[in-house]
């Protein structure tokens, strides 16, 4: 086997065992969150100095086991096998020892240098459980060190033992467990053949490979077939034979027998002097008493609604002021660039492309920071697991997961959210199919950027029933998100739901340090990854909306028109009082400016695309003006209003001055309430803005980013066409 990296320490353990808290206690803020290549499992790395040595720590994803069923487990396992850390610290929850040791046993079977951190010993003591860690260590054959991650107690001893272990030369022994009379003989035989054939032995202990063949582990068997198809075939045959035998005689499978014996081994390990329970076992602890209210049939959902609403309020209320400061700062910089750069395409690109793009990136940061803070808080306290538990029945019907609710709410399930933090909030969801379905449908919610557009259209066409229409829109967005999630899970993401089996961890108060580190790291990750994409697309969009511009001949016509107005004013002002015609001329010149802007927009690439799209969009009732506005809405939905204003030559309002667009549309004979409603439906459902798409790409893949663009737009078109044509048939036009 190749040598281990002595200064590399990996942390492994169950979810909720305090692994991340310990990682934070050791590395402090010197850490870095990234992804494992090609997948969305988080990779956390950090550094610490111990007695003059620089140690690198990797916090592996929390797992209960090391099978090949989930991404997290595969990542953890492959990291241990391929990156060969000098020592692995297995964090074990002392108050939940039996189940935590199940992973320990599997780590020992991997034959890696292992060290057990017996964490949360204070919790165990409070529950009347005392553990003889020295005896436990003797029986496991590895050092066991009691720790309290929250206070950092035992941290020094742990690192000292880790460094000592990493610098030992001897190869650690592989744990041998007896798997009973049916499995053991076959296991020995397989082990012998594996060793003789030097089959995968450069990375895996022979017995471990044999066990994986018996457990029918697809990943290991796949690797084995590549390495040596003949020997792999023999091993598969042996495994099948014993599997058939077990099914006939015991009505059981090798993997079940193996799990039974592992737990049997653990029970035996903990007997006779390792664990002492002083008070009565299984009494109701504080957490259980809290759960009596918090998951109560009636009070549970009530409290949950309050908590979810509070989480939403917190995210969007407290982030409002920082968002405004940032926007003020950005527009100040934009103003400077506007004043000092010479007019021309460069200035236009800097102001409308780069500065707006950067503004688009960092404008989201406060919302993201507050969202992660609130989600991390709910997750670390253990409440998020209760939300999933209470809501799973509803969301499962639509092929989703109880945890999908947070992403929906933050995306605008309570109108006014934002899909960027919403998509990022799906991180807590560990079921891959359910997670993708949530990511793709969360942007259907009515985010804060769609609201001003809706408000404008509602005020113009449904002014008598504003509240009613707005509530209807919230209901419609939930209905479409859930039904379309169901549709996706029926078709392209078809497959059984991922097993739920969710642990309700005891309620705990999160550490402030942990929350801060967690939040900052993720916000930074957003800026780095999603930010670059957003900036790039922003510049592309600026180009689409500005080029090729008006031809010189046309420009000259507008110039001449302005000149003639000026000349006319000068002429008239001699005869009459000067002020009135001057003001009138100013307005007339502005009108010419708007007309020029309208013509330039129509002539731009986006305008031409918008015009050619009318060939299809007429079905939903949209002309080129609406089309180009919708195209610009891909940059940010609120831009739809200002682009439409330009398209109706109403003048651009960049600094929030009112455009009387609503009045203009209401007065326009070609606009009807039906058409407005069709447009609302389209805006609600069509492609997410590209900041959201950048996050979808960050959280899943390019494929899903592109999919959400094409698929959501198709759905939006079909439904708006249905509304418009259906309405016309019913005579509502």
């Amino acid at each position: 086997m190749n040598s281990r990296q002595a200064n590399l320490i990996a942390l492994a353990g169950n979810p909720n065992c305090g692994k991340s808290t310990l990682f934070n206690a050791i590395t402090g803020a010197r850490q870095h969150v990234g992804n494992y290549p090609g997948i969305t499992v988080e990779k956390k790395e950090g550094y610490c100095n111990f007695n003059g040595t620089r140690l690198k720590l990797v916090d592996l994803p929390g797992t209960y086991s090391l099978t090949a069923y989930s991404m997290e487990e595969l990542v953890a396992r492959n990291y241990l096998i391929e990156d060969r850390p000098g020592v692995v610290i297995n964090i074990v929850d002392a108050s939940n020892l039996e189940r935590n040791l199940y992973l320990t046993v599997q780590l020992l079977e991997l034959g890696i240098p292992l060290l057990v951190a017996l964490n949360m010993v204070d919790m165990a003591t409070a529950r009347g459980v005392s553990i003889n860690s020295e005896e436990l260590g003797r029986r496991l054959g590895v050092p066991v060190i009691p720790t309290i991650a929250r206070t950092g107690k035992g941290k020094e001893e742990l690192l000292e033992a880790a460094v000592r272990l990493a610098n030992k030369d001897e190869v650690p022994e592989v744990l041998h467990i007896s798997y009973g009379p049916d499995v053991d003989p076959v296991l020995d035989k397989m082990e012998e053949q594996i060793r003789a054939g030097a089959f995968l032995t450069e990375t895996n202990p022979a017995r471990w490979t044999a066990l994986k063949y018996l457990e029918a582990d697809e990943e290991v068997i796949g690797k084995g077939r590549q390495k040596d198809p003949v020997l792999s075939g023999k091993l598969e045959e042996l495994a099948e034979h014993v599997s058939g035998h077990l099914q006939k005689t015991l009505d059981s499978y090798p993997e079940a027998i193996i799990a039974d014996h592992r737990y049997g081994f653990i029970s035996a390990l903990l007997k006779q002097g390792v664990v002492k329970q002083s008070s009565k076992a299984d009494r109701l602890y504080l957490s259980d008493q809290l759960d009596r209210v918090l998951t109560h049939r009636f009070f549970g959902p009530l409290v949950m609604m309050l908590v979810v609403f509070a989480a939403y309020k917190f995210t969007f209320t407290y982030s409002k002021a920082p968002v405004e400061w940032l926007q003020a700062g950005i527009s100040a910089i934009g103003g400077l660039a506007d004043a000092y750069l010479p007019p021309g395409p460069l200035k236009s690109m800097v102001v409308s492309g780069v500065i707006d793009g950067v503004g688009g990136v960092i404008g989201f940061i406060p919302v993201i920071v507050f969202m992660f803070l609130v989600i991390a808080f709910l997750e670390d306290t253990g409440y998020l697991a209760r939300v999933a538990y209470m809501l799973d029945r509803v969301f499962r019907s639509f092929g989703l997961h109880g945890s999908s609710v947070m992403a929906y709410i933050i995306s605008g399930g309570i109108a006014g959210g934002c899909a960027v933090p919403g998509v990022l909030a799906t991180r807590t969801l560990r079921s891959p199919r359910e997670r993708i379905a949530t990511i793709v449908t969360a942007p259907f919610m009515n985010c804060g950027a769609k609201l001003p557009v809706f408000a404008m259209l509602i005020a113009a066409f449904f002014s008598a029933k504003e509240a009613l229409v707005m509530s209807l829109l919230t209901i419609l967005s939930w209905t479409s998100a859930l039904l379309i999630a169901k549709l996706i899970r029926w078709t392209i993401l078809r497959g059984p739901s991922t097993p739920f089996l969710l642990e309700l961890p005891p309620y705990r108060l999160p550490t402030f340090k942990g929350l801060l580190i967690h939040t900052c790291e993720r916000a930074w990750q957003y800026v780095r990854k999603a930010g670059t994409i957003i900036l790039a697309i922003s510049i592309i969009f600026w180009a689409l909306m500005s080029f090729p511009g008006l031809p010189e001949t046309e420009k000259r016509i507008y110039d001449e028109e302005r000149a003639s107005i000026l000349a006319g004013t000068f002429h008239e002002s001699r005869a009459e009082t000067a002020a009135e015609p001057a003001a009138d001329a100013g307005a007339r010149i502005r009108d010419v400016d708007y007309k020029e802007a309208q013509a330039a927009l129509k002539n731009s690439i986006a305008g031409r695309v918008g015009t050619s799209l009318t060939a299809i969009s007429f079905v939903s009732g949209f002309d080129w003006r609406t089309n180009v506005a919708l195209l610009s809405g891909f940059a940010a939905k609120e831009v739809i209003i200002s682009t439409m204003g330009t398209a109706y030559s109403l003048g651009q309002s960049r600094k929030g001055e009112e455009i009387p667009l609503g009045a203009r549309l209401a007065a326009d004979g070609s606009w009807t309430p039906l058409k407005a409603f069709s447009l609302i439906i389209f805006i609600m459902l069509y492609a997410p803005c590209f900041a959201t798409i950048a996050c979808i790409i960050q959280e899943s893949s390019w494929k899903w980013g592109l999919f959400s663009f094409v698929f959501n737009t198709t759905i939006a078109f079909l439904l708006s066409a249905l509304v418009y044509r259906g309405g016309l048939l019913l005579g509502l036009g």
Partner: protein
Amino acid sequence: MPIVPLRKMAKGQKGIIYRINAYGELGRRIRDMGLVAGTPLWVRGRAPLKDPVAIRVRNFTLTLRNNESDFIEVEVEEIL
């Protein structure tokens, strides 16, 4: 002693796992969480919509959907 699927157990009822009938991913997940034959458990409660079910096993609380708890046969004192 009678054997019932976990789904049929009442709140507060105790029992000992008799058999796990699930294989593949679900079976593996169930076993990973420490549910193997011979393990004592009791039903801590059900979610407001009666599904999933929360059980106390090996000193921690685990929740699983009703259609998952169908695969877990439990030996109980009496059928409630």
